[in-house]
């Protein structure tokens, strides 16, 4: 026999209680005051401070290291941005500027420390003139200029629950900034690890921030200058090697490296003798450049953005994102390395090739025809639905 539920002595009293649910709820609403609802909430305010999306900064100081390498100190513009968002050492920001008819965005790792942002309200980035935006910054930007930047982003950070207490840092060229920030973070106590820092340069004159690095040397921080050609007192001559790691660093360690892709391959090979697991090696991703093509062609790129449609030329050696930016379209972008997904757009038609090893789309995005334009080159005319940047 089916079960019969009853709670009170008489079942109809249970029924009555059910019937009263609605009147009771109406009564609660009627008795509640119609006070205005909050315009914001503390957690949301903190979230907004941690992740403001865009920030607006003024160039406060420019330091020239050489004719084509400069460090820029950014402070809030004081109008749209009052306090800079905090960040974790190793993260990057993007800088956006109108250069000629183009609207260009590039990612730069932060070289200042987490406390510089939190307590002293500034960021610094170091830029080497090697492209449209870095050329603009190095030759035209001046103190007082206001720039649009993104919130700090990226996962190239020390994770205490994943990484070992000993960090080996390998920096090549201007790639020093994110690791410099990590060194400062350990030194100032905002992060907790011991670091052995290998700074690899072709010649001693290319070493940046030597005074700052030397000033941090102590129990928990060691810096080794690895100079390929020429000489520098106390430096190691030649290239980075596993012997240098054995000589200076403690094992086991977690490796963080920042430099050109060629350096990453070289360093990975060198440290094979330590049998590192994938989790022990972190490389700061580099932006995706033009590809080499046998025959240069220009295709038609049709961009649907909200209720507008743009038709722009797209060279077969440049990414779809670069083509959009060159045409002045405000397309979304952040990492420019295929990974963060901010530029995620719907492919409506056309053929393309993704930069080898760089396409970090989600599985379902492959299935439903979504692409990351920052890592995709056109092989035919292409049509895209792109979210507003």
């Amino acid at each position, binding site marked *: 026999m089916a079960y019969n539920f009853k709670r009170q002595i008489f079942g109809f009293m249970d029924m009555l209680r059910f019937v009263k649910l609605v009147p009771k709820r109406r009564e609660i609403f009627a008795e509640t005051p119609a006070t205005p609802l909050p315009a914001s909430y503390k957690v949301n305010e903190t979230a907004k401070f941690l992740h403001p999306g865009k920030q607006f900064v003024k160039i406060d100081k420019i330091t020239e290291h050489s004719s084509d390498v400069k460090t820029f100190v950014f402070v809030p513009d004081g109008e749209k941005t009052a306090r800079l968002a*905090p960040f974790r050492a190793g993260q990057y920001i993007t800088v956006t500027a109108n250069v000629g008819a183009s609207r260009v965005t590039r990612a730069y790792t932060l070289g200042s420390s987490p406390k510089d942002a939190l307590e002293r309200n500034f960021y610094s980035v170091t830029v080497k003139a090697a492209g449209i935006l870095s050329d603009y910054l190095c030759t035209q930007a001046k103190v007082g200029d206001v720039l649009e930047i993104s919130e700090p982003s990226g996962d190239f950070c020390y994770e205490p629950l994943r990484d070992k207490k000993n960090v080996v840092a390998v920096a090549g060229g201007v790639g020093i900034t994110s690791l410099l920030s990590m060194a400062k973070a350990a030194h100032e106590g905002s992060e907790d690890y011991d670091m052995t820092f290998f700074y690899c340069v072709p010649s001693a004159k290319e070493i940046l921030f030597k005074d700052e690095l030397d000033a941090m040397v102590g129990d928990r921080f060691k810096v080794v200058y690895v100079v390929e050609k020429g000489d520098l007192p106390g430096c190691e001559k030649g290239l980075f090697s596993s012997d240098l790691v054995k000589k200076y660093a403690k094992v086991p360690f977690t490796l963080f490296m920042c430099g050109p892709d060629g350096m990453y391959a070289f360093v990975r090979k060198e440290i094979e003798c330590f049998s590192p697991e994938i989790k022990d090696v972190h490389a700061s991703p580099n932006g995706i450049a033009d590809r080499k093509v046998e025959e240069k062609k220009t295709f038609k790129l049709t961009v649907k953005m909200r209720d507008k449609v743009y038709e722009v030329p797209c060279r077969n050696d440049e990414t779809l994102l670069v083509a959009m930016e060159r045409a002045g379209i405000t397309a979304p972008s952040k990492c420019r390395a295929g990974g963060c997904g901010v530029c995620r757009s719907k492919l409506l038609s056309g053929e393309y090739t993704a930069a080898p090893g760089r396409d970090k789309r989600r599985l379902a995005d492959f299935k439903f025809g979504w692409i990351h334009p920052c890592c995709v080159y056109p092989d035919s005319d292409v049509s895209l639905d792109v979210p507003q940047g």
Partner: protein
Amino acid sequence: MKKYDAIVIGAGNGGLVAAIRILQKGKSVLVLEKHNAPGGFATSFKRGRFEFEASLHELNDFGPADNPGDVRTLFRELGVEDKIDWTYGTEAYRAISLDGKYDATVMLGKENYKKSLLRYCPGCEKYIDNFFDLSEEIRRAQAYTASVNGKTDKEYMKKNFPNFIRCGSYSVNEVFRSMGMPDKLRDIMNAYWCYLGAHCDDLSFIHYCSMVYRYVTKNAYMPKMRSHEISCALDERIRELGGEIWYNTPATGIVTDEKGEITGVRISDGTVIGTRKIVANCSPHVVYGQLMSPDAVPEAALKNANARKFAGRGFCMFLGLNKSPEELGITNHSYFIYDTLDSVKQYEMMKKIETNDCQATCCLNSVIPDCSPEGTTMLYFTTLYMSDDWAKVKPEDYVKTKNFVANRMIDVFEKATGAKIRDSIEEISVATPMTYARYCGHPEGTIYGYESQYWDGLMPRLQMMNEEVYVKGLRFAGGYSMRLSGYSSAYNSGDIVGRQTAGELVREDN
């Protein structure tokens, strides 16, 4: 600029389904979404060689193709069922209490559910059978209610579903106590409670029992490519039907005329897009408190919102591990680890960061073995905070607090299950109430909408949904609405408000 018959604010589960329902009636729809991907919490993200599921533990009420649950039937009607590759699990959960009292693994399927419970509670057949009887009647009563669009015949209900009515006003614990159920069985059967986010003295029995029974009879379904696959399928269907979705486009205002009727939605660049109907897949607190001009908000809407209580604020840790589940000692799919299986006590402990050790943890590989590369494992750990404790966390302490909770979650998991995971972490990502506030805009980082308090549970919400349309043409979908929170509930709410909105448009246009 083009005008739309309806604008959907928020491409979450409810909003996407509502859009399809309106499009299916031949009306034009624009979906506005602040994020750059569909689904709201129903999404995924990549770290290294792992693609993490952002929120779905398992889909309720889906069932196999030849014995579909309501959600599969809905997906069939929407035209998305076959766009998604489905798989399923047959384990309900392993419930472990840190006080050492319980470690129980419960299976799905009526027979296996009973069998597994009897292992821990021998001689309790009749209580489980009675629970099934009651559940079946509740299921039939709900099917009848849906078939008459909520306009139920009182006498018919009394005659055919008397038990449904008699238990309809009680909490889970009140009903189980009246059934004479032993504490141990009740505690193990209650372990799903954190999926609904209210403790069992408060949580409506009908609501809880509907969920449990649908898991038991329809299994736990999962899309193979994470919930992002479902969200992409719904997005594609909207496009096929001629609808539009604008990503990176937050709605910043709702515009009404002097009569208080909807005329448009403002977006971040100031543009106003004309429309007659809005489905808001977001919080009424946001709509009435931030999107509408204060003088356009009816008093009754403010009273309603002020009376409600925010449910759990979310926290989730995602781990990509470089060993297989076997190597790590992970044997189950879904772990509920509680300090105590007394949900009332546990709820209290979940109010503070310092005292909350509750976690609902899933090993995705147990249901989708190839979801990560061979020899690796993906685990995601979720907890809720039942107060606004995260509001006290200062920005400078944010990362430290995140790591404190994450570290403790790992300790608790290892201690409770005996698995060893700490040394195998290859990728780690942590989402806090701030993360949820940032991505979805919910007040205080709430992920469960309004809490299912005893007076604000499923039944009265369903019965009152029509009188809660305070602004003509403005309806709510998602966790804050009449079906409460959870994937299936959100899809169902989108179905309801989508059909209501479409119906209203059709009536107005004829």
